Every structure is written in structure tokens, then in C-alpha cells.
């Protein structure tokens, strides 16, 4: 049996040799360079000091990509969109030179490193596990979470790329537009807006802490009583809950992944007698809108496009 012991020993030595090397390998990220102006960002993982103006930025959430584009910065790398061919339609043109680095849930560390970024922007909810590793590639800033209101993260992103002023201008522009619309909409905001989403195998009724829910609230739109709730959505609804979809006007969106399952489901529900029985359906106030814009993309550009949609519907 000694032979086995020997094999085991040899094997362990091999491994130890490999591990022993690791501790000394903290990279020295160019400390000796000419002193540039530096700034410090406080974020979900602590404080990060960034030197100079970051030129090569990698973004690891889709709403982050939109925030950067809005501030006139094109990332060198970004995570792929949830639908569509690599990017969403509304950002594809601006991202044509951007390299995809994988999915939001598990972006490829090597693909990110390959881009030699000087700043990485990610999200604690998605990538907390690899924060230290990302930090070895470049200074990394994480937003805390993902939720309906994108403005919180937007502010952080503007600090991260040291464009707080541009960011504030953009936010002001957006919020001014909201105020103007609110004024011109006037009485119309008393209409109760209902929102429904169809996905393969699931139907949801959207509440206030969703991307589109937040925007509707900012505009001062009323919501049907059963949707006027501070959480995200009612998931997995059965047809029995169709009456909760009623309102003065309904926008619905369908998350289609390519196998036509969601579209099939949408048609089935829309044509259901219970659905046809809704006041909003009888009044012909049911509208299909883009799932990407109203829900999935969830960033600055999508918000603007959603406002465009709303303007059209409430002219």
C-alpha cells in the first residue's frame, strides 16, 4: 500500500507547488506612473480610487450600458442583451464597435481582461462573486442592486466615469421632460394604467417597483387598485386573475425568446372571453408595446423611448 501513499504525496506536492505561488501575485497597477488627477467613488463594495479619465470602460449590466451611452461614452466591452442578436435594437448602432463579454450572470473574465479596460462597472447582485478578480483587471465599481428605479444607479455610474455634471444634465433633461409631459397630460393622468407581461410559461401583472411602473408613477399616472402596490409584480397568474388586469388603458408586452411560445400564449390570453370581458378591452384601449423598451432593457435610453410611446398614445 505504500505505493498509494507515494502517489498521493507526489500529487499533493504538485498541488502545493502550484498554490504556493499565489500569494505574491498581487498586481501592481501602475503606481509609478505620472501623477494624474484621481477621484474616489463610494459604491456597494467600498471605495475605489480611479486615476485620470477612464477611456476603456467595460460595463456588466444592460442598464449600465444605456447610462454610459446616454452620457456620450461608448464602452469597449459590454454584456450581451437578454434578447436580440447580441445587442438590443435601440442600442445596436451605437455599440457596433463594442465587444460582447458574455452574459450578465457569468461574464467572461478573460474577455474582459482582453479589452485591457481602465474601469469596470458592474452590479453586486449579479457579480459579487468575482469582484476581487475584476478588481485585478481594473478598478471596479459596483452598483448595489437592480430594481425598477434606474436613476440611483445612473448617478453612481456618472460618478464612476467622473462625469457627474454630464450625468446630472442628462437626469435633469429627463426629469424636465417628465415634468413637461405631466403638465401637458393634465387630466389624462387620472386614467388608470394597467400593465401585463406574457412570457413562455408565465404571465405577470406589473406593479409599481418595476421599470415601467416607476416611470408611470413619475408621470403621475393612476394605477388600478390591484396594481397600485409598492412591489415588483404578481408572477405566475392564472386566468382567474385576468379581472385584476382591468384599467382605463392597458399596455402589454411579450418576452419572446424565439420559439414563438410566448406569442402563442399572448394570443390565447388576449382572445380569452375573460380578457374580452375587461372594460379596457371593450373600450379598445389595449395596446401592445415593445418588451425591450418597457421592461427588459431598463435603462436611460429605453426610458426616453418609453416616454415617446406614451406621448403617442396620449396625444
Amino acid at each position: 500500500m505504500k505505493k498509494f501513499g507515494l502517489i498521493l504525496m507526489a500529487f499533493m506536492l504538485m498541488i502545493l507547488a502550484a498554490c504556493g505561488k499565489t500569494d505574491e501575485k498581487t498586481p501592481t497597477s501602475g503606481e509609478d506612473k505620472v501623477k494624474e488627477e484621481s477621484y474616489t467613488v463610494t459604491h456597494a463594495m467600498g471605495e475605489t480610487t480611479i486615476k485620470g479619465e477612464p477611456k476603456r470602460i467595460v460595463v456588466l449590466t444592460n442598464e449600465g450600458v444605456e447610462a454610459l451611452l446616454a452620457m456620450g461614452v461608448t464602452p469597449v466591452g459590454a454584456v450581451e442583451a437578454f434578447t436580440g442578436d447580441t445587442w438590443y435594437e435601440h442600442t445596436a448602432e451605437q455599440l457596433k464597435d463594442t465587444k460582447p463579454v458574455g452574459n450578465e450572470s457569468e461574464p467572461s473574465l478573460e474577455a474582459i481582461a482582453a479589452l485591457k479596460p481602465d474601469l469596470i462597472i458592474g452590479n453586486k447582485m449579479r457579480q459579487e462573486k468575482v469582484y476581487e478578480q475584476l478588481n485585478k483587471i481594473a478598478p471596479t465599481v459596483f452598483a448595489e442592486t437592480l430594481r425598477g428605479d434606474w436613476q440611483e444607479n445612473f448617478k453612481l455610474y456618472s460618478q464612476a466615469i467622473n462625469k457627474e455634471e454630464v450625468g446630472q444634465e442628462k437626469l435633469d433633461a429627463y426629469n424636465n421632460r417628465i415634468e413637461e409631459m405631466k403638465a401637458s397630460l393634465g387630466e389624462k393622468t387620472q386614467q388608470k394604467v394597467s400593465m401585463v407581461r406574457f412570457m413562455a410559461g408565465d404571465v405577470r401583472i406589473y406593479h409599481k417597483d418595476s421599470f415601467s411602473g416607476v416611470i408611470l408613477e413619475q408621470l403621475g399616472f393612476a394605477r388600478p387598485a390591484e396594481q397600485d402596490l409598492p412591489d415588483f409584480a404578481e408572477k405566475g397568474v392564472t386566468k382567474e386573475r385576468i379581472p385584476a388586469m382591468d384599467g382605463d388603458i392597458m399596455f402589454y408586452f411579450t418576452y419572446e425568446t424565439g420559439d414563438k411560445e410566448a406569442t402563442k400564449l399572448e394570443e390565447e390570453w388576449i382572445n380569452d372571453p375573460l380578457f374580452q370581458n375587461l372594460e379596457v378591452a371593450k373600450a379598445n384601449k389595449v395596446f401592445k408595446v415593445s418588451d425591450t423598451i418597457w421592461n427588459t432593457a431598463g435603462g436611460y435610453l429605453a426610458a426616453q423611448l418609453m416616454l415617446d410611446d406614451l406621448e403617442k398614445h396620449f396625444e
Partner: protein
Amino acid sequence: MKIFNRIDFTRHPVIATVLVFVAVGTVMLISAGSGEFPLSPSKVLAALFGYGEEFDRIILIDFRLPRIMMALFVGMALAVSGAILQGITKNPLASPDLIGVTAGASFAVVLFLTVFSDENNALIVSIQWLPLFAFLGATLTALIVFALSWKNGIAPFRLLLIGIAVAAFMQAGTTIWILMGPIYQASQATIWTTGSIYGANWSQVSVLMPWALLLIIISLLLRRQMNILELGDDIATGVGSMVQRNRMILLLISTGLTGVAVAFAGGIGFVGLLAPHIARRIVGPKFQSMVLFSAGVGALLVLIADWIARVAFAPIEVPAGVWTAAVGAPYFIFLLMTQRKKGGA
């Protein structure tokens, strides 16, 4: 396989074991060298020993090596755990992931993600605690299974059946929590249940490695007890060994190994089922040679799966658990079919 048929490795288990670990080493080198930046073996070795470019070293030592090491130990742990369980139950279809250990860990993970979240869906504790929770879930579930199957001792028979049922129960529980929890955490939980080595780091490896090695070494030290247990209760009692006590100790080792593996890598399936099978075919049923050889096979399986996960669709990651199932499951069927002809399943 032909080469294995020609040489009777049951008589030369040492050679077979050396060969399989040479293969493991080769795969480790290949995996270390491939990715977004291909590194030649000489560059890999240079970076390993502290030479070469700094960038190469970051890529290799901070990104690739932790994954490779984790795949190595996860594979070995799952395989040895399966070998022990199959030995104790004298059943070739037993495996730790079938009797509820993995399902229990999944349940604990989903629980962790929902309980430790604030109203903004942000985790209020560091994600570094998640493996501990998974481990607790795995071991607690195993203890429940042991307790439920206790009836004047643990009959392997009852253990397996009750384990399967408890696994189903835990799955139902997981489904309920996923339905109740916020949607963002659902996708995190699914990736976890599929099993993934993504994002492994050295601090994880430094916990996993000593645990796995320690438990594997203890199980090798218990080889005599194991070989007696495999002969069956009658003979075992005749020899005078404390069957129940030994069985319990070995079960705990098996659970510990799976627990620590799933804690870091999630529900990577089929390794614990498959590796001991291949080992028994090639080096025979003797416990010590079988355990070492299946450790090698398990490591190979997970290493290759994670290599594919990382490289095949880059930059998109396809979790390693998808590949162990895709490769392991059909091979498992093939294995059973061909073994059947020899008359001993």
C-alpha cells in the same frame, strides 16, 4: 477503451492510477493554456513559477488556476463520495446527488438568497457565506435521511429509497421558495442548481482543498473496513467489525465530501455516479485502487466540463453542470448496457 481491454489493469492498479493522473495533469495544462489568450505550455510553466509577463500571470493564476483547482477537487470529492456510497450500499446506481444531499444544498441556497435580502433585493451579507449555507443544507439533509432510515441500524436499502424521497421533498421546497422570491434571485438559483465552477477564487480553493484531501485520505485509511462492508452484513458481522459504526463513519465521510463539493460548485451531476463505475471496470472492485482511480476520473470529468464551459461558446459561459450531464448521462447508459451483457449490474 480498447487499450484498457488489452491490458488487464486490475492486476496493475498502480499503473492505471498513474496513467489517469497523468491524463488529469495533461488536461490541467491544456485548460490552463487555452482561453481568450492561448498560452503555450512553456508560458504556463513560466507564469506558474513566477516568471513571464505579469498579464499572463493574472490570467493564469487569478482566473484560470482557481477554476482548474476547484474543478480538480470538486471532481475528486464527488467521485470518492460516490465510490464510498456505492460500496456501502453495494449498489452501482447509488450516488450522493440522488439521495438528497444536493437537493438539500439547493434548498439552503435558495433560502439564503431570499432570507438575507432587503426590500431592494440586495444581499445584506457577503456572498462568501453562501457556500457555508449550502454545506449546512447538504449535511442537515443527509442527517435527516439517516435518521428517517434508522431502524435498528441503517440498512443501505432503506437509506437509498428514503434518500430519493427526501430529495423530491427538497426539490418541492426549492420550487416554492423560487416562486415566492424576487425574480432576480431565481436566475441566480437556477445557475446554482445546474452547477458551475465560474468565479472560483483562491480563498474558496483554500477551504475546499484541505477538506477534500483530508476526507479522501481518511477514507483510504478506512479501506479495510470498507472492503469488509462490501462483503455484506453477514460476513462483516462474522469478522466482528462494528458494522453499524463503520457504516455511519463512512456515510458521514461521503456526505462531507459531497457537501463541500456542492457548497462551492453547486449541483454538478453524474460525477459521483459515473466515476466509480469506470473505475470498477478498469481497476476492479478493490476499494483502495478503485477510490484513487475514480478520484482521477472524477477530476477529469469536471476539469473537461469546466474547460468546455469556459472555452466552447466564449465569451458566453455555459455552466459546467450542463456538460457533465450531457457527457455523463449517455455514457452512463452505455456503461450499464454493456455491463449487463457481462451479467453483473
